[in-house]
């Protein structure tokens, strides 16, 4: 009972703040049109309301958060469907399918004899929608097979070229950069970031690191002896990699928070 009353009081406070913000923001609008100012005032206040509703989840789950979350799901689905229709159905199918439809949608009609083929993906697309109908839902596997087949066909050659062959090739790098003999190397040795020693060290770390990393992932042989040592070096290299990734992840997440707080202080409160 007490929590219900508290919720009502909180809702009333939120509504009051919302109203004050809307009126204030509408009054400080930049447009000549009163309607635009009132609309923009409402929209920015609503954006703030949604931002704070999501942040309220940090305290605990609550109706404001649930409202924002539900709205997000609906809005996103509508957004992607609209885009799919305009960018691909109107953008790619209509110009090949019909002159009159192209004129209606203001897209350039493309006259070609083989346009009948453009109905193939439309048929597969419609078949995909049978998934919504339990009795003939199995038909959607045909379309799914097209999508999976295309993905497999595309990925096979591309991953082979860029992520396997090129990566192996990129790992075979000079292990003695600018080498002019041991005497010259020793006399110029330093820990300068752009020096010869660090360049050589980097290339060794890359070459040995890749090999040892791969050894760590090779589970068909027991990790013992020299193989075990290589595997151990491999896991250390991977730990540095994960540490770097963690550091970058923290950076990224903080940036998003900075973005939201900047929005609240700058776009809403105008204090920046």
């Amino acid at each position, binding site marked *: 009972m007490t929590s219900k009353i508290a919720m009502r009081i909180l809702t009333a406070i939120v509504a009051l703040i919302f109203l004050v913000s809307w009126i204030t923001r509408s009054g400080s609008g930049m447009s000549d049109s009163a309607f635009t100012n009132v609309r923009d005032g409402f*929209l920015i206040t609503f*954006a703030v309301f*949604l931002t704070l509703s*999501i*942040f309220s989840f940090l305290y605990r789950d609550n109706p404001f958060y649930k409202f924002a979350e*539900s*709205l*997000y*799901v*609906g809005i*996103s*689905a*509508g957004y992607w469907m*609209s885009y799919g229709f*305009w960018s691909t159905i109107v953008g*790619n199918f209509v110009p090949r399918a019909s002159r009159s439809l192209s004129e209606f949608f203001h897209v350039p009609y493309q006259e070609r004899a083989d346009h009948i083929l453009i109905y193939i993906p439309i048929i*597969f*697309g*419609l078949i*995909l929608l049978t*998934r*919504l109908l339990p009795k003939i839902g*199995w038909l959607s596997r*045909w*379309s799914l*097979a*097209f*999508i999976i*087949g295309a993905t*497999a*066909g595309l*990925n*096979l*050659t591309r991953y082979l070229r860029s*992520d396997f062959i090129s990566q*192996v090739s990129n790992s075979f790098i000079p292990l003695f950069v600018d080498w002019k003999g041991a005497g010259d190397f020793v006399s110029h040795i330093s820990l300068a*970031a752009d020096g010869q020693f660090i360049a050589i060290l*980097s290339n060794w*770390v*890359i*070459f040995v*690191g890749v090999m040892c990393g791969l050894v760590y*992932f090779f589970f068909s042989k027991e990790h013992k002896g020299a193989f075990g040592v290589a595997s151990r070096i*491999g896991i*250390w290299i991977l*730990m*540095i*990699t*994960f*540490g*770097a*990734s*963690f*550091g970058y992840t*923290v*950076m990224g*997440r903080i940036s*998003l928070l900075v*973005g*939201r707080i900047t929005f609240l202080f700058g776009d809403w409160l105008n204090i920046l």
Partner: protein
Amino acid sequence: MKRQIPMLILSAVGTLLVVSVFIPSARHWQEDASLYFDIIAVFAFFLGGGNLIRVHAEKVSRKSAGWIYSVVTLLGFGIMLVTGLFKIGNPNGIAGDISQAGSYFQLLFQYVMSPLNSTMYALLAFYVASASYRAFRAKNTEATILLVAAFVILLGRTALGVLLTNWIPAQFSVLQVPNLAIWIMNAPNLAGQRAIMIGISLGVISMSLRLLLGIERSYLGGDN
């Protein structure tokens, strides 16, 4: 019918895309197949929308727990779809860019979808901070290496790293934290990521081959 035809379609499309890479004159097959793939992909958006309506409409009609939030979802979906499909308020009318500034679709994107999307992810900043305090412990050698690398990156990618270590002379400049962070990214991180990348690529290649050869059939589901 339920298994053979999908397998045939998958093998035909996949093989066509692989073979046409090696036959320059057959390049248009690849273009066509990719274009068809893109158009079918859009129907996946429609399928998603249809599913959303089905699930949430059922919740509303049954008045099951939290049905009022399903109403919110359906309302959001409907409003976005109508403003998008009919390009309501678009200054250039039906011919204009769907995201034209000033259109209601773009306004809803900027003031509703955008804050929701970005704040959802901004929450992770708090969770990652909490995890740093509670979970990251130097319990063994591997964990310590991970923590030290993370420390160097976190310090080295800010001005603080410069302030703390710019006194280190030039012949030891790699020990300045920002330089050390760059070195970690360019050498050990690169090596580790490359090892992972090679492993993943082998996985992708073998999975693609299994699919094309009809060995992998899990996408067909369990029945029939």
